[in-house]
């Protein structure tokens, strides 16, 4: 079994150290550029060795992100980034697993996995580029597009209601639930960093203008001010700057958990005229690995990727004789 010794950490990594040689094929003005740059900036701030980051994705414009990262990249199937990455996170808890993907990928075809990832609280970070459309397949409605809306590729107005992925995430058990915006680099970087530092399943839904197909919710639209009771306010606003704190201080305190959960769901729901960004919900809970280790202590001692299964001559090291005995007629 190959060892996973780390190379010495770079002196002071810069965002560019996490850029691969690949030139992106995204449309000019796509919100995805800013997200990738923010992620690279966070990697630099955290100083994680390149080979210890596993960049996962599904399929879509956004899901090409791993190829732009100078890290291990796993560009999986449409909608399946979560189960693939869960396998990696469970088998090798020593690496940092970061999943990126689109709203169609995560909340449409991958909706089942999206939900169950919360139930498991796997230790990883999930960044969803939410542009309300299926970019790569030319702009069809995604699950986050509201009923009746008709971005330019739709032949008829959207007949489906939208889902609120973050409300779902809170209910499903995600332990870090946030929203950010592709063109607010400072907020985006701070939020991704907090998500990566969180121990457990973290999701950041990132509002991402798609200038090619979403002509309704553009960079300009997000940048507008909206009028409320006679005064003008920025459309996108940071709830935490207004004093909101979604962090549960004492996870054992049912009253606090309940109160904060209701507050989080209420805040998440304000995605109407104005768009709330920030961390809505954060709680410490045992991760999936913690839970599995309770019934399978060996996993806690040695992650499966490091378990020795053969000696130098290839002889299997697993000794089954005690188990065989249970099946032998002589016992």
């Amino acid at each position, binding site marked *: *079994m*190959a*060892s*996973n010794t*780390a*190379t010495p950490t770079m002196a002071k990594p810069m965002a560019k150290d996490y850029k691969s040689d690949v030139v992106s094929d995204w449309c000019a003005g796509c919100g995805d550029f800013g997200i990738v740059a923010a992620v690279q900036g966070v990697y630099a701030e955290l100083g994680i060795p*390149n*080979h210890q980051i*596993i960049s996962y994705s599904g*399929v879509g414009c956004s899901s*090409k992100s*791993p*190829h732009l990262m*100078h*890290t*291990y*990249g*796993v*560009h*999986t*199937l449409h909608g*399946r980034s979560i*189960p*693939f*990455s*869960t*396998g*990696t*996170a*469970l*088998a*090798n808890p020593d*690496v940092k697993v970061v999943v990126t993907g689109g709203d169609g990928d995560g909340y449409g075809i991958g909706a*089942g*996995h999206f939900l*169950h990832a919360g139930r498991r609280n796997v230790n990883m970070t999930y960044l969803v580029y939410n542009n309300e459309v299926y970019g790569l397949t030319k702009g069809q409605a995604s699950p986050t597009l509201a009923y009746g809306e008709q971005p330019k590729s739709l032949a008829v107005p959207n007949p489906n209601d939208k889902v609120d992925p973050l409300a779902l995430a809170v209910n499903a058990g995600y332990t870090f639930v946030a929203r950010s915006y592709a063109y607010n680099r400072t907020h985006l970087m701070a939020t991704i960093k907090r998500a990566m530092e969180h121990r457990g399943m973290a999701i950041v839904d990132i509002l991402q203008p798609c200038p090619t197909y979403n002509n309704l919710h553009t960079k300009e639209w997000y940048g507008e001010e909206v009028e409320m009771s006679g005064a003008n306010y920025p459309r996108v606003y940071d709830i935490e700057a207004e004093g909101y704190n979604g962090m549960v201080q004492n996870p054992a305190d049912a009253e606090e958990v309940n109160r904060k959960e209701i507050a989080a769901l209420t805040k998440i729901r304000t995605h109407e005229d104005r768009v709330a960004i920030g961390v809505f919900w954060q709680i410490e809970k045992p991760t999936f690995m913690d839970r*599995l280790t309770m*019934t*399978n*202590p*060996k*996993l806690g001692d040695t992650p*499966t*990727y490091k*378990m020795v*299964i*053969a000696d130098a*001559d*290839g*002889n*299997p090291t*697993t000794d089954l004789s*005690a*188990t*065989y005995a249970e*099946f*032998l*007629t*002589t*016992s």
Partner: protein
Amino acid sequence: MPTETPIVNHFSWTIGGPQGTGVDSSANLLLRSCAVAGLYCYGKREYHSTIKTGHSYTQVRVSGIPISSHVDPVHLLTTYEKTAAKIHADEVVTGGAIIYDPGVISADDLNCQDGVLKIAVPYDEILDKLAEEMGQPAAKVKIMKNTLAVGATLAMVNFDMAYIEKALSGLFKGRKAKLVPDNMLAIRKGFEYIQAMQMNGSSVVDQFPYKLEAQPDSPAQMIMSGTTAVALGKLKAGCKMQTYYPITPASDESVYLESQQKEYGINVVQCEDEIASVCMAVGAALTGTRSATSTSCPGFGLKAEGIGWAAMNEVPVVIHDYQRGGPSTGLPTRHEQGDLLSAVFISHGNPPRMVVAPSDMNEYFEDTFHAFNYADQYQTPVIVLTDKCIGNNTMTITPFSEEGLKINRGKLATQDELDRLASLKPELKGQFPRFGDSDDGVSMRSVLGQANGIYWNTGDERDAYGHITEDPDNRQVLMNKRLRKMATAIAEIPESQQFQLYGPKDADTTILTWGSTKGPILDAMPQLLSDGFKFNVLVVRLMSPYPVEGVSRILSKAKTKIGFEMNHTHQLAQLTRMETGFSMDHFINKFTGRPISETEAASAIREIMSSTTTSKKEVVLSYGK
């Protein structure tokens, strides 16, 4: 009635009843009792796709020599309620016997053939008395009807009680050990009741010709079922990640592995569906962890896209498909061999996939072990086609042999190699050309997290580092490279792991078969050979890459070729014709969902081989409830 010559160690027994009433535990106990007495056993389990009430039964065949199939005649039918007595009474052969509860069914309602002994065992009466003797509430004691039934059964065959006690203590260990004495009491009651029973002036035991004699000198056997054999093969191979979504008959394997996690450290994860299961196993495999997933037909279909991705990214992963009756949900608890072609062709666009089809319990263990080596050596998904018949049936087998079992991880890059390559090309900044072309189609593989091994995976066509490219020349190189592995595999894998030929090599007739269908054919073979039906049996074990050369060599010598498998469209025959050009002359088939017995195999082979017609003939078998 005077006793005829006893028929020793050739016994076929059926026990049946509503699901959840202890049919399985009775069958286990009887089988184990015979096995510890040095007899060879084969237990065939049939059950409905319901949890309670649906009728289930187990047929146990006991023999003085090793066996791997059931037979159609039933010598003794044991029942303790009405349905089994009604359903199976007509299967008992003349000279056989039926044990029934006169409290629930009258002798006249038993639809038996002439000359079948009808033995009334008043379960309630006997157990009420036992409850009194034990000073226990009757309700508590009455649940032991099924145990009493085993005692009654074994009295009929003159069995030695000591072996029953031994078997019972083997079954009830640890916390359950305290159940042994009470159960022994019930067994003894059943046993003594039959021993004392007279009918028409003589002992019923004497009127029943089938007897079992212990063979204490028999070599030790394992009592095994297919799902457990696979699980043990996985543990031996060092599989440390198993994912699954519950489905009959595959989940028994994962549930067993769950029970072994503490001991062996394997991580078993129940997923949200079969798509997640295959993807999660692949994600774990990318870290270098030996990983697997296990499923049955409908779940196997769901895995197609994930299997294709694994093949495209050259990820070693092992997928077991326990075939059951299809199409769709089909016969969810019954047997069929219907997935061969869907396995060989699973997933769109020409991915290299290996398909292995073990054909007996020992091969379930060995081929599972080998599958992990193939996956690592050829860096591609390996599908193991198992089935409900061996998967769910329980039999005595020669203990697993670990001889020569070596773990081969293939071209897994060591840290030293990666560091050396990185120092030669510092401009790569730790990137590694994981998908570079290679003569044998297999390139050096780094695993996620390894320093200086950085590469990218993608479902798209890629360059050597794993970045997307649609360059036509590169495309050609990589398609060739991936599929070249299949030629490497067939050249490297020992022929005995590709196919096996049983019986006289110079026979003019060859039967082509695979999977569990081998069992009844080989059981029928000695008698058929001695009756002058000369044939050999070619069992294909590696389905993809297909052993074209070896199979052609054998089929070219056969004047008559008979395809014998359990699916409507003769999928192995189709595959063989596609790969080798050889067609079958005749077919033997069965698709009722019930496995083929030795009895059926023998008569079908006889029928085809005695037929004088030269036109294509198909015998479609259908026996069994």
